[in-house]
């Protein structure tokens, strides 16, 4: 009944190659966008923004970035935390160095700087692959975190070693610093999130994305049909770094406000984002959102039911969360290697024929 193509005629190439070719899908997408921009900002409060919406939006961007690298190009990276830290510190240095420039530009520039760093650490991917590469990216993770911890230029020689976001405004509304309204922070991140998702979606279904997928599926075959592995891999690293850098900048500037690098961007963060990509679905933009939502909501839910509802101690709930997340990863890899996105695809297939499946 839903998702039916019958009667939905395409009369131009443009119609034929649009992102959501099915009318119902398209309408639902517009509806979600309208709700996100026009309804949610008016009804949310501080708790919802800080516990659910901001982490969801920011992790979605990071997951999209990592998904481009892991899901589309097949290069496993365990350095996401470190690259997010690059974005955060680049943003901090830009914010304090050029306070007269808009924060929008700072965040985009921070993404660009991260892209460069990511490119540098992607160079080994030209010689190695698989988990060898994963270990190489671990080097990035540990080295970058150490560097931001020890080189005091990065945190402007502050005594605590922390970086704190100064107050900035966009069109007169504070988006960073203590005076930020919840809705402003939410909208600010939402704009970036939607822009990133659009960009990523169009990149992955265009020439660049096809090259990445060719490399992922079989690099030698891809090379023979004319894909330059050097360019394809490095562009995946750079673009992935761009998204991850933006996520890191937002994570620091808008979400946390003040950051201590080892705590906020440690190895655990790398794993968290990788898990989002696996659970959500490798090689799917929607999957990045689904995975981020899942892993943001799961701890909140567990905490509310176990600690709030049953009165268990917090550390027990935290350990249980570890077990559940780990178990789910294994379960997903066994039962549904393509993650939540695949479940969604199957559901869609079913819905097309829904009331009369034969």
């Amino acid at each position, binding site marked *: 009944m839903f998702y039916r193509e019958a009667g939905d005629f395409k009369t131009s190439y443009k119609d034929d190659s649009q992102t959501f070719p099915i009318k119902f899908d398209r309408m639902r997408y517009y509806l979600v966008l309208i709700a996100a921009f026009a309804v949610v900002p008016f009804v949310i409060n501080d708790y919802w923004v800080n516990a659910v919406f901001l982490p969801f939006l920011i992790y979605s961007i990071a997951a999209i970035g990592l998904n481009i690298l892991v899901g589309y190009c097949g290069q496993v990276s365990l350095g996401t935390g470190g690259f997010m830290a690059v974005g955060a510190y680049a943003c901090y240095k830009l914010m304090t160095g050029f306070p007269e420039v808009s924060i929008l530009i700072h965040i985009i520039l921070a993404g660009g700087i991260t892209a460069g760093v990511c490119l540098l650490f992607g160079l080994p991917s030209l010689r*190695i692959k698989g988990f060898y590469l994963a270990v190489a990216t671990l080097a990035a993770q540990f080295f970058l975190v150490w560097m931001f911890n020890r*080189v005091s230029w990065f945190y402007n020689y502050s005594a605590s070693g922390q970086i704190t976001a100064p107050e900035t405004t966009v069109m007169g509304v504070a988006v960073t610093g203590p005076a930020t309204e919840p809705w402003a922070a939410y909208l600010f991140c939402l704009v970036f999130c939607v822009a990133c998702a659009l960009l990523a979606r169009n990149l992955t279904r265009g020439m660049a994305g096809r090259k990445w997928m060719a490399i992922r599926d079989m690099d030698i075959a891809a090379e023979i049909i004319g894909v330059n592995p050097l360019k394809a891999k490095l562009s995946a690293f750079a673009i992935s770094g761009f998204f991850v850098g933006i996520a890191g900048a937002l994570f620091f500037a808008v979400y946390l406000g003040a950051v201590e690098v080892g705590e906020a961007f440690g*190895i655990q963060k790398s794993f968290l984002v*990788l898990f989002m990509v696996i659970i959500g679905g490798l090689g799917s933009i929607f999957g990045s959102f689904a995975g981020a939502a899942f892993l943001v909501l799961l701890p909140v839910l567990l905490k509310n039911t176990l600690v709030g509802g049953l009165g268990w101690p917090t550390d027990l709930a935290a350990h249980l969360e570890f077990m559940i997340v780990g178990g789910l*990863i*294994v379960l997903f*890899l066994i039962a549904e290697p393509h993650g939540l996105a695949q479940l969604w695809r199957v559901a869609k297939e079913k819905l097309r024929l829904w009331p009369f499946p034969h």
Partner: protein
Amino acid sequence: MPEQFIWGLEVLLNGLMAGVLYALVALGFVLIYKASGIFNFAQGVMALFAALTLVGIMDGQVPFAHLINSIFGTEIHHFGWHVPAFLAILLTMVVMVALAWAVNKFVFKHLVNQEPIILFMATIGLAYFLEGFGDIMWGSDIKKLDVGLPQGINGVIDEATYQILGYGFFIDNLDLFATAIAAALVFTLIVFAQYTKQGRAMRAVADDHQAALSVGISLNFIWVMVWSLAGFVALVAGIMWGTKSGVQFSLSLIALKALPVLMLGGFTSIPGAIVGGLLIGMGEKLFEFAIGSAIGGATENWFAYVLALLFLVFRPQGLFGEKIIERV
């Protein structure tokens, strides 16, 4: 300058000792990787889990006490007995074998023929699960582990070096002991692999799964055996590290240190794991001693990885590894 040299020598020796402990963890990786092609990220957590179990059994802790107390509102903590170290080690080994069986039965049996990277990610999931499981089972507070290993400065070496060089070296007894254990362990493993029936079967599986199957070797049995062996190595590593720095979460992070060790030594070589461990241990201590303090200290966090990274570019198969990496 001679003073500097002597200090450097002491640092070097201590680095060697630390390297032995890295090598112990790396050994567990190599065993599983050789036999099943699985890169077991959970090795470090297995060491943590083994150490936790050992302490728990020795102290007579009630497993899942925390959970039971929360659900039923009871107040149980200990059985009230103390198990002698040797018996506790045996019991822990039983737990590790059970774990090996469960891991194969519930996880890797279903993932046969998947790509290596999928298996790798599954072990990351396993690591998370085990970490939570161990904490729920035994509690997450930092515990002291004492199975009666010697500790403290070795007087003989201190005396001897003082006599010869005029400066007493500080070498921990535990490190010396760990070195001896590691050497014995490697020797036993090599003998096991070369001269016993099961060891040969293990090598056959490592060579070629299908050929091994066709001559009647049970893959399931070999995998459980290899995971048990890795569990045993993890237990030994857990005892050493646990005695050295207490049983705590950071124990699982030594697994990450073992990765560059493997890069250096090669994924498929037992001697490689040892040499790689020694090189990394030595290298990072010396680097910290010579250059580290000048550029901010705590370089041990990343030195091993960057060394491995550089190494990868020039010799991707490691020092002793087989040439298996496809160049892209």
